[in-house]
């Protein structure tokens, strides 16, 4: 008696409407092309990203360099918790930040739920939906995305792209450089639910708040040092 795999694939083969060779399948797919381009509401990718994140009640800061990012983290964490303890994955970019300048104490580990704040360095930002692409791997343990109250995500402005099509290209380049993670997550807001009265409540299971720090020299936003969205 054949196993279920063989039986299911045989049924699929019998029922499906085409029986193309591998090269022909690839050719047929290529002919279908890609999805129509997304029309962004703003010319500026940063503006688009921030406006989308705002819809999901996320907040953001824009800073010129990594040192300023540490200052923002320090103030953000202290204002809520009256301490400066955070957890972060083993990301070389995070390890290189001048944490001492902001008196921030970082534990490079996977949280077990005792840490209120996690820091993650995004691999890519997607303007069309306000999404921040992060890895689930050594550089950012998956649990750090969800077992905290506050999630702070850093994004280099060079890693911001217009849409998901560009994001996947960016991700494939990063995978060549850093290896392929077991998980890729696009985070677009804090954890939320509308299951009761269709009323949106944050912190359903994961973070109650999401804060983005965009790092880079933005010509259009040079005067903005550290503004909330």
């Amino acid at each position, binding site marked *: 008696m054949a196993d279920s795999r063989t*039986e299911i694939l045989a049924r699929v083969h019998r029922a499906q409407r085409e029986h193309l060779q591998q090269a022909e399948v690839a050719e047929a797919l290529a002919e279908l092309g890609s999805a129509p381009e997304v029309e962004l509401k703003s010319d500026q990718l940063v503006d688009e990203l921030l406006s989308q994140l705002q819809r999901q009640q996320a907040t953001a800061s824009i800073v010129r360099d990594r040192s300023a990012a540490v200052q923002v983290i320090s103030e953000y964490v202290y204002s809520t918790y009256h301490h400066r303890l955070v957890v972060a994955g083993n990301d070389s970019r995070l390890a290189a930040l001048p944490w001492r300048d902001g008196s921030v104490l970082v534990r490079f580990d996977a949280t077990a739920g005792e840490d209120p704040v996690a820091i993650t360095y995004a691999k890519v930002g997607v303007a069309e939906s306000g999404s921040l692409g992060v890895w689930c791997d050594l550089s950012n343990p998956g649990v750090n995305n969800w077992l905290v109250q506050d999630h702070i995500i850093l994004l280099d402005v060079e890693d911001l792209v217009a849409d998901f099509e560009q994001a996947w290209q960016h991700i494939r380049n990063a995978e060549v450089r850093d290896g392929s993670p077991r998980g890729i997550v696009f985070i677009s807001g804090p954890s939320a639910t509308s299951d009761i009265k269709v009323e949106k409540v944050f912190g359903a299971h994961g973070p109650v708040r999401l804060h983005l720090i965009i790092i880079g020299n933005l010509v259009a936003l040079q005067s903005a040092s550290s503004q909330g969205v």
Partner: protein
Amino acid sequence: MKQTSNAFLDTARGNLADQRLREHMNGLGITIPLGRAMAMEELGNFEVLRSHLRDIKDHTLNNLDYYLGRYEENVIQRGGQVHWASDASELNDIVAGICQRIEARQVAKGKSMVTEETALTAHLQALGLEVTETDLGEYIIQLADEPPSHIVGPAFHKTPEQIRELFLEHHQLGERSLETPTEMVQEARDILRDKFLNADVGIIGANALVAEDGRSMLVTNEGNGDLGANLPRVAIVCTTIDKVLPRAEDATALLRLLARSAIALPVSAYTSFYTGPRRDEDLDGPEEFHVVLLDNRRTEILGSKYQDMLRCMRCAACLNHCPVYIGAGGHAYGWVYPGPMGSVLTPLLTSLEESSLLPEACTSCGRCAEVCPAEIPLPDLLRDLRAESVQSGLTPWRWRWAMRLHAWLAKRPGLYHFTTGMAIKLMHRMGRKNGFFSKLPVAPGWSSVRELPAPQGGTFMQQWKARSKSDG
């Protein structure tokens, strides 16, 4: 779950008589479509994008063996394990087998319509496992011991007062107000956090499977599915063979329409792509990563005149826009999938005998097809199922005879015009006094809630001929 689709009329009647439910559902039937309309208007290219996705999905279904093979190959290459299940009981046995092998005691389960289809929770509980639904809506109906009434918001039929009562009854936490949704969400979060931390197995669903890299896409707002995929020792993705797509870009293109159709936002809070277990150097993640691919009669739909239904992305737009669903309520459909998509899927996945009333639960208004992001011609599929129902003798004998009589008459134009002309004249004479009929002996149900205006003038064909003559 026990199927009660043929009790549709009785359950719908009960729901319609429930004033509280009426107000609640009517509100949902206005606010959710309004939000979706605004989201689509903002997107701008709904028609172009859905046509593109229809073509991609059709191409994938037409070459499904190739894409399933590619997907399986890539999952295995990344350290995952792929299982194939012909039917519901096989999926349940596979998942139970994994749980028993690792001596699991607690299971954290995310929202998955596939596992509702197979009744996995009850199966695992019967084996002594503690299974906790972790999606808030699913958790609420698990406490209430009820099936879901909506595929995106399973507890949409529950009022905040009912949820509060459930929490007070099931959570032994002493006296507390628990008045607001925020307080209730916080309480559920605390309880479910412990469940996650103690779970041996996490069970999640998938919104799409990507053939080119073996990743499965999971779309959530709560993040409960992600905790299930990252915290327990073993992660199991329960999904179906029709979820596969060729490229990662196709999955995120689908996401654009899925999120807007389901929650009126460009994207959900978390869109995750998982494949394989934790790597050697990782600090967290499951030690084992399994995918169970379920057929459950989908290969019978493939290649049939109902194949378009396999494009369904479970966004619930058709439910939210269906006047019958809003009126009757989700439980009236008596199985896992309610609304227009459920009225097509249920007869195909179970049997037409057990659900012959569902294709009749349609006003043919066409709103479902208008808003469907997968461009599924739902009214056409429902019509085909109704035709099958008549041919199989599943409809009442009076309907069948009326249909036969109509068909016989319609094939004889002379007789048809004569008979309808006489009927119009007769009805005109009988209804002259009031100008309407408040009771029709041939359609008592129809006329019990509305009046039929008495016909004026001749039949349509008589008037058309007269008009053509006068126009020269």
